[in-house]
């Protein structure tokens, strides 16, 4: 699992520019699927027909980032955020664009740290002038702030894009096992989640499953003076009860909790009132789609580097596979 996560986290996939990671993701499930494709909004979708109700797994493939919006005559780039990225957090960082070009984020002098906005930031790609810059990048090109994934200890990883490549890895493993066991499953690597769960909306309309399980990160609350979230790293996957986009129907929530109990999997409960996920877009599609969520706790969600515990991810796979089998 760790190798898979490391491989996936290597891709640069800001919202709306997911095509490279989607190709890699679908390659990892193609052999067990009946069909794989990407759709109009950039979702990567794999389907496997089988027995029982149709269960769809959804894990967003995208991450927040920046987009080039202006190229100055002097060769510096101006950027906007794609998804929720704070300007202050970018200062002094390396940015890597989807075409491989890398730069450093600078800030106009005279601007106080607390006043920094994207209007004051620029990316320096070493171009001598605007023409050189234009030969390397274009308006609309997206990138991300770099932060390598490192081993923290035997079980923990920290770094960029773990939210939600860990979820993609969980979904891949679960899909492969469920498909091999002959279940009726599909898998969506959703696009454009960080800008408002746009991909999930059109994917749900296409698939209209009997149950959708969203796999995503949830903020842990076990750090000093952290927001009150009753979630610990390494204490097991979290069953979603509600987030800012959806309240999980009791029947689905109970099924996941009962499954965990039967299998002896330690779980926690996710109540993330302001959390944004794909769940709402899916639940409110057509005349309603039953939705649930299995999340892995992660520290520093929304920052460049998040920390996860692989044991939570591994247990999440077991929980999802068993929940599909017994639904």
């Amino acid at each position, binding site marked *: 699992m760790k190798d898979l996560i490391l491989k996936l986290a290597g891709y640069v996939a800001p919202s709306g520019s997911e095509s490279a990671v989607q190709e890699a993701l679908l390659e990892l499930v193609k052999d067990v699927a009946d069909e794989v494709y990407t759709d109009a909004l950039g979702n990567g979708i794999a389907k496997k027909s089988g027995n029982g109700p149709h269960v769809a797994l959804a894990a967003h493939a995208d991450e927040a980032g920046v987009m080039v*919006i202006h190229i100055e005559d002097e060769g510096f780039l101006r950027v906007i*955020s*794609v998804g929720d990225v704070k300007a202050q957090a970018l200062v002094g960082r390396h940015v890597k664009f989807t075409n491989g070009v890398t730069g450093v984020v600078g800030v106009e002098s005279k601007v106080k740290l607390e006043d920094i906005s994207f209007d004051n930031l620029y990316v320096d790609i070493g171009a001598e002038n605007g023409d050189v810059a234009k030969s390397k990048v274009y308006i609309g090109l997206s990138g991300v702030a770099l932060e390598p994934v490192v081993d923290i200890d035997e079980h923990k990883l920290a770094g960029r894009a773990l939210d939600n490549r860990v979820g993609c890895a969980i979904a891949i493993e679960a899909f492969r096992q469920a498909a091999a066991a002959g279940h009726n499953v599909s898998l969506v690597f959703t696009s454009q989640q960080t800008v408002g769960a746009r991909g999930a909306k*059109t994917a749900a309309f296409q698939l209209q499953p009997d149950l959708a399980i969203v796999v995503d990160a949830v903020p842990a609350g076990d750090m000093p003076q952290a927001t009150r979230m009753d979630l610990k790293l390494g204490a097991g996957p979290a069953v979603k009860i509600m987030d800012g986009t959806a309240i999980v129907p009791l029947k689905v929530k109970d099924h996941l909790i009962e499954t965990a109990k039967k299998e002896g999997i330690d779980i926690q409960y996710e109540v993330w009132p302001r959390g944004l996920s794909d769940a709402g877009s899916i639940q409110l599609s057509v005349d309603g789609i039953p939705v649930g969520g299995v999340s892995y706790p992660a520290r520093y969600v929304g920052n460049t580097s998040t920390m996860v515990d692989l044991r939570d991810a591994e247990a999440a796979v077991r929980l999802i596979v068993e929940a599909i089998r017994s639904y």
Partner: protein
Amino acid sequence: MLLKKLTEAMGPSGFEDEIRNVIREEVTPYVDKHYTDVLGTLICEKGVNKNGPRVMLDAHMDEVGLMIVHVEENGLLRFRPLGGIDPRVLVSKPVQIGPQKRFGVIGAKPIHLQSPEERTKPLSLKQLYIDIGAKDKDDALSAVKLGDVAMFTTKYEEIGDHCAKAKSFDDRVGCAVLVETLKAQFDLPLYGAFTVQEEIGLRGAGPVAYRLQPDIAIALEGTVCFDVADAPGHGQSTIMGKGPALTVHDGQTIANRRFLEFMMSVAEKYSIPYQLRRVKGGSNDYGAIHKVREGIIGGGISVPVRYIHAPTQLISLDDYQNTIRLVSAILTELAKGGFTA
């Protein structure tokens, strides 16, 4: 003059009756069929049985406006905005109210009576009234009804170097582009949707896209342009006179790169100037359309409009003509199979 007719017609969000009638009259000779949906969107069909990708062009008819919500005892009218209006632009402007287009003025306390401190603060909506000359409340209510809507009175005129000023170029300029496009012939199934209620949350576009299920949808807009004194390069969004602006990323959409590049390549092939819309804020109907059903490929093409949402807006007529040319070239290329959805 089409732009004059369209910009001077009334049509605040949800109250598009007059503008819809004007457009209906303009397009009737050129389309096979037209009808309205339950929200009031005017849908036109042209050659829908032809082969090729089914294309929906969208332009919203509605404009920002005001609604009369209360009358004071002294006959002054209280109002609330329909759509995003900065209250700072309202002071000292005339408006026309209701189906009779009765004149009213939005005044302010004379400068003589203001304290120096008052003068530095923008007036809020609560401090603004419309005066229709009524003697008292009953007199006012004999002339206007609660719920009547009001619009700016700006006249369309050509000014400067091939520019024009008017109210509501957002999005009557898009409507004009769409009307002109419907007059031409293209070898593909074409739908024109003049939508309602864009300014209050892209309300009209989703249902019409759901209904028509096009293969490709393009929103035609008037968009933010601030290429004025002191604006830095990355704060302009678009530049007036540099051609139609293609959306890269806005509040509701991240451009489909493949379609964006297709549009850019068409512009280059036909030597039509174009630019990219370079700002994150704002949105257009494509933001609602692309999320409908399984997802719809397309994009946004806009005419840069200075002072958008203000009473007097400014466009370059070259941009307008080039937008018509670009839309036409894109449809021609689409009909030839230049893009597979």
